[in-house]
């Protein structure tokens, strides 16, 4: 088998767990047509800079980092692959059980706990969904948690802070990403209930500049997509990264965040 040049993937070290994840993925690619290595960044802004500068061939980006790359390159980039779970990401508004809150309109006039300014799921999109329903920050009392800025909400820290505010009666409603909400619920009945769930939107993807050689990109993507849940070694990595299957991107799922960034005038970098 002919081997192409090693492809370098950038990822953000939002938790210590990314090290075994990427080491596992690198190992999976070791015998493939396109071996890969990885470089870790402390935040998504540095990672996007590195992709633009050609320091990495591919970046494992959040939805915000992807759209910023699209903006900074004037569309000169492409998404290679996503997790199946990235296709159906949602934001959930939750409140204490018995609050009587149900549906977006019921949130008007309440204290709404929102997460970090760079979190699509906990801040940017819930703000947009409320605005689409005619509810602006003037119509609610926002309680903002700008925790772990730079990680684009990956740590879930600001979502946990928002939920804690609801439990402590410092807020009435908290905006959570669906994965954080599902993880919390694994402990059983929490005394917290869903007020409203957003439509699906897309989350992370592997982003490459358009200049990346097509054959290398396709060879790497095809091998990634071949990871199999039923193979124990693959499954270990898939479980750690929170998916069952890698899939081809579906870009329409980024439309809502793209609109939100324009409406909220979120800059392409900060």
């Amino acid at each position, binding site marked *: 088998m002919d081997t192409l040049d090693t492809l370098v993937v950038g990822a953000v070290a939002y938790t210590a767990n990314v090290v075994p994840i990427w080491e596992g993925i690198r190992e999976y690619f070791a015998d493939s047509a396109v071996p890969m290595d990885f470089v870790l960044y402390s935040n998504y802004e540095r990672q996007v800079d590195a992709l633009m500068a050609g320091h990495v061939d591919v970046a494992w980006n959040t939805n915000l980092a992807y759209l910023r790359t699209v903006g900074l390159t004037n569309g000169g980039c492409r998404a290679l692959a996503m997790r199946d779970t990235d296709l159906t990401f949602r934001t959930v508004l939750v409140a204490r*059980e018995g609050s009587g809150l149900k549906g977006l309109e019921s949130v008007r006039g309440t204290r709404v706990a929102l997460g970090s300014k760079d979190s699509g799921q906990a801040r940017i999109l819930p703000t947009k969904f409320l605005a689409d329903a005619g509810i602006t920050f003037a119509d609610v009392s926002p309680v903002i948690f700008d925790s772990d800025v730079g990680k684009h909400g990956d740590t879930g820290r600001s979502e*946990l802070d928002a939920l804690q505010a609801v*439990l402590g009666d410092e807020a009435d409603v908290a905006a959570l990403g669906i994965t954080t909400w599902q*993880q919390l619920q694994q402990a059983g*009945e929490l005394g917290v209930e869903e007020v409203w769930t957003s439509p699906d939107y897309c989350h992370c993807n592997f982003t490459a500049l358009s200049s990346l050689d097509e054959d290398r990109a396709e060879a790497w993507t095809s091998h990634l997509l071949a990871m199999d849940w039923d193979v124990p070694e693959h499954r270990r990595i898939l479980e750690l990264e929170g998916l069952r299957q890698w899939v081809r991107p579906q870009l329409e799922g980024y439309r809502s965040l793209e609109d939100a960034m324009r409406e909220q005038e979120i800059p392409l970098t900060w």
Partner: protein
Amino acid sequence: MVSPTVALPVTPSRRAQLSIRLVDVVGRLAAGTTALVPVESPAEIEVVDTWCRGTGNSVLAVHPDAVEVYRGRLSDLDATLPPDRMPGRRLWLYTNFHCNLACDYCCVSSSPHADPRVLDVDTVTTLVAQARDMGATELFVTGGEPLMHPSIAEVLVACTAAAPTVMLTNAMLFRGARLRALESMPRESLTLQVSLDSATPGLHDQHRGAGTWARAVEGIRTARTMGFEVRIAMTIAHRNSDLEAQVARFTGSLGIPSEQLVVRYIAQEGEATTGIRLTRATLVPEVCVTAEGVWWHPVGATDPAMRVSSELLPLGPSIEAIREEYLDYRRRGDVLAASFPCA
């Protein structure tokens, strides 16, 4: 994983606090590392356990006031050990402890004066049947000198009927009734493992007694003439490639291939005051039965710290206990390895 307990239920708000802490703390862990999550009641332990099972994580240990959570799934024993090293795959039987020799490094202090502690034939028959049902595919008969067991022929019949058997012997008693007993054994399912520590009498006789080397070599020749497969076990203080090569060459001259040479290093057990120090946590178990109980490994078959149970039968629970304890050591070893960087 967690013992059932009767306790007051955890309130939803307390469960929410626990859940937030779990998502936060475990979310920051690397796979294969652990964190302590404080709990205030047995019911909260159940909450943590439920959360772990639902999120692909694991409870490693339960302490009085905290649960040790492991990021990721704990592997089962099947995934951590090759099949031939699975505890219970081999069963060792100390048929007796008395011996015609009194070697200075004997790990179980056998000698002509040792209490025989004989395993009777009926017990052996039941043990090997139960071991086979639990997956045993190799049996090892040792002592003492097994040929001093009053019914060694019946013991070996019971063993070889259950699984291929290796008898460890000093090969010095191949005469009279014992020789006749040996002659009656099936060659295809019984291997004789003879102790030979050196290629010349010096080191062997120093540990085992004057004249023992010559008689052992004579016994090896006799066993081979009788058609038995013979392997050699050499016991030395520490790795010595020259000595090992000398013995390999010598046993080769007796017609025994080098792959049939087993080299063992003296362990600090029994009569040996120097040698490798072994504990249950540092020794891959090989289930061993004596008249006094079930043991972690044959090298420690008189060491109280190595005794798993004083009940010989049924054997199944002891094998299960050894597997579970060993798996726990493996998990903790992995955790330690992952949390003990070199720099």
